[in-house]
């Protein structure tokens, strides 16, 4: 049967066909839809774990217990999960385990541009790189086979373009699989130094066998032999772009590029007159190929940063040919168009939080989530962002450094459970005095509304405990805890006045549901009475997309299709011009 699947859906499909029994993950663009697709298929246990480290460890447990397992995350998630991955490479698995990591070249929805292939080398485990949804399904099945053959986890690296492109895929039935028995064997599964040193040697020996196998894996590493004048070695979706942009070139599309398939690389290099390595990300293949003594072009003509789009490959083509291949760029009129950056949605409760904060001279350390958008004008109320959980810990460090203004650290609810708790505990334990805020909209909003330990529901759709943020904070020793509704602007400002200047730790939970997720929070749209409106433009300081004004002379008006009736604008209007429509 053929289905038009996205890369993420195809990863789920391949895993399901391979008989995956348990899947774990933490949401993160561009990886999120994998588990959302998998949970819709029968007979698979799926869960959102609080963070990627927990998810990878749980998947390792499932694989050691003898069932095929997987874990999904975005590239920065593997930073969090790197610790267990390194050791899992040593102790290994019983049934197959695949670590699916989605990189984000071009940083469409990420704070860094990382090349996960570095982690494969660091952990000394194989990495497969699908180029489209067909590869995603096929490679996922192969990844489980390789994981079992070598008893080690295998990384499958997708990218934004691969995860979010669709392709027609041939799909088959699910393999029937029995659980393989877990048998006690401390010298294999307990990496105390006396056993760990022996495991370390085995890992190195495994790499040699994998390199030989990769060179022979014609289904993963495909040669497209066309004219011999130009040969391109590439991987992932970049290799597919190359097939279109260089119609005469021979292309070696590496789907299993590490451990390096040296024999295959040497053989391909021998078939072409000029060799160019076109890699999205870092020059990992290029440096190795040069180390093999094979001359090639690479990052001297291929961009080092950003996504390798067809247009940028045309520039590479110009460099190879020595003649220009111009590509049209945005027309002159486009340069004057207003920018349309992502913004907090109409009715977003985070707006009240940032608007209230804008009334105080404070330093704000933010975090990763929708509320990162609080940095943009007109709210402009975030000063530093580092990483998941960093909102709390940065604030503590800045206040300990003697920052004279009050320091406010913000994390979201999902982020609190991900890695905010340890930061809060640390600040209370070490007698810090920053003000911590949990922007609690009752969901993991930015990635598309996934459940988390505070929502009372699992990924499988079952009711469960709803972990209480105030109770956790109290257990950590936090004495000052306020729970407020950020839609009430005056009260939010009043609470900030009380909490920002105290010389002890303080936690404010601004709690109101994301209106995209909880439609019961949506009310009738409001209306600006043009006779009462003095065009003072106070309401526009909220930065709400539902309040429109084409220019400074035009009185603002509310777009009823966007307005959710949150009434924040009504609260900031000094002339009572805003009423129910």
């Amino acid at each position: 049967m053929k289905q038009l699947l996205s890369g993420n859906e195809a990863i789920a499909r391949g895993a399901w066909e391979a008989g995956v029994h348990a899947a774990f993950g933490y949401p993160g663009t561009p990886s999120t839809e994998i588990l959302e697709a998998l949970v819709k298929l029968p007979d698979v246990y799926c869960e959102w774990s609080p963070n990627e480290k927990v998810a990878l460890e749980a998947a390792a447990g499932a694989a050691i217990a003898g069932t095929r397992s997987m874990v999904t995350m975005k590239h920065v998630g593997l930073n969090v999960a790197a610790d267990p991955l390194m050791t899992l490479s040593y102790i290994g698995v019983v049934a197959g385990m695949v670590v699916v990591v989605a990189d984000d070249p071009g940083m469409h929805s990420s704070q860094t541009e990382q090349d996960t292939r570095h982690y494969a080398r660091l952990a000394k485990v194989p990495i497969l790189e699908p180029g489209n949804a067909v590869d995603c399904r096929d490679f996922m099945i192969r990844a489980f086979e390789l994981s079992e053959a070598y008893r080690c986890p295998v990384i499958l690296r997708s990218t934004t373009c691969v995860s979010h492109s669709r392709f027609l895929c041939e799909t088959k039935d699910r393999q029937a699989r029995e659980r393989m028995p877990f048998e006690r064997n401390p010298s294999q599964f307990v990496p105390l130094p006396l056993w760990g040193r022996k495991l370390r040697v085995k890992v190195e020996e495994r790499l040699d066998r994998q390199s030989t196998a990769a060179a022979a894996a014609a289904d993963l590493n495909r040669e497209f032999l066309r004219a011999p004048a130009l040969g391109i070695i590439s991987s992932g979706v970049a290799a597919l772009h190359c097939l279109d942009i260089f119609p005469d070139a021979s292309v070696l599309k590496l789907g299993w590029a590490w451990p390096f398939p040296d024999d295959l690389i040497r053989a391909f290099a021998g078939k072409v007159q000029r060799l160019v390595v076109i890699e999205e990300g870092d020059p990992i293949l290029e440096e190795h190929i040069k180390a093999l003594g094979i001359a090639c072009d690479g990052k001297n003509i291929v961009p080092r940063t950003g996504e390798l789009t067809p247009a940028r490959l045309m520039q590479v083509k110009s460099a190879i040919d020595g003649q220009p291949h111009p590509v049209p760029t945005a027309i002159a009129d486009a340069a004057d168009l207003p920018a349309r950056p992502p913004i907090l949605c109409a009715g977003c409760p985070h707006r009240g939080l940032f608007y209230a904060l804008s009334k105080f001279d404070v330093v704000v350390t933010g975090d990763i989530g929708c509320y990162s958008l609080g940095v943009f004008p007109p709210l402009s109320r975030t000063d530093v962002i580092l990483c998941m959980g960093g909102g709390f810990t940065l604030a503590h460090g800045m206040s300990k450094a003697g920052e004279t203004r009050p320091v406010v650290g913000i994390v979201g609810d999902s982020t609190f459970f991900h890695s905010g708790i340890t930061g809060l505990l640390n600040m209370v334990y070490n007698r810090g005095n920053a003000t911590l805020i949990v922007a609690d909209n009752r969901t993991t909003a930015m990635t598309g509304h996934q459940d988390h330990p505070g929502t009372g529901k699992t990924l499988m759709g079952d009711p469960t405990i709803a972990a209480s943020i105030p109770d956790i904070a109290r257990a950590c020793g936090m004495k000052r805890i306020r729970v407020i509704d950020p839609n009430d602007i005056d009260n939010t400002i009043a609470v900030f006045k009380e909490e920002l200047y105290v010389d002890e730790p303080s936690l404010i939970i601004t709690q109101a549901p994301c209106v995209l997720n909880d439609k019961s929070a949506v009310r009738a749209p409001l209306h600006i009475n043009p006779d009462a409106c003095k065009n003072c433009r106070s309401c526009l300081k909220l930065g709400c997309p539902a309040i429109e004004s084409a220019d400074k002379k035009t009185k603002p008006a509310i777009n009823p299709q966007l307005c959710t009736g949150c009434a924040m604008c009504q609260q900031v209007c000094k002339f009572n011009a805003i009423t129910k429509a």
Partner: protein
Amino acid sequence: MKRNIVLSGVGGQGILLAAKIIAEAAELQGYQVTTHEIHGMAQRGGSVTAQIRYGEEVHSPLILEGEADILASLEAIEAIRYAHYLLPGGLAVISQQQLIPVTVSTGQAQYPADIEPMLARAFPRYKYLDFCSIAESLGNARMSNTVLLGALSTGLDEIPPATWEKAIAVCVKPAFVAMNTTAFHRGRAL
């Protein structure tokens, strides 16, 4: 034969559904199909695109600038932002709907006062129509994506109306199939 189609608009307007219907129709017609979508942060009211490629053989899911047969936009200025994707002489189908970005409302930028002359400069061949009002008159303004789809379908001769109808039936919730089929044909007749 190879077809490249770029859809543009603002996050939340429904270009993903339009892309899905085009891909489904091309698939039903027996072509190889690939699409590319924007998810994540850009969806929060940002400028977004979807791309569809189909033909006897397609590799890359991304369309090279200057090679799109059709550019269709659900928002007026979002057509101009991506005009350079269109082949010289390609067809542009543009909704008259104007969504004022927050950058304009807060005085950081200006929305162009007169769009028609810009469109005339950008596109030798274009349809600039009020898809929203048409959709509203048929019962739901949110169907403007289907009306627009009907309008752009006239540029894709290789897919007959019956195939489009089947694709709509596959992609749209059963209760809305009849309404959307009507919307599609209204767009096609424009």
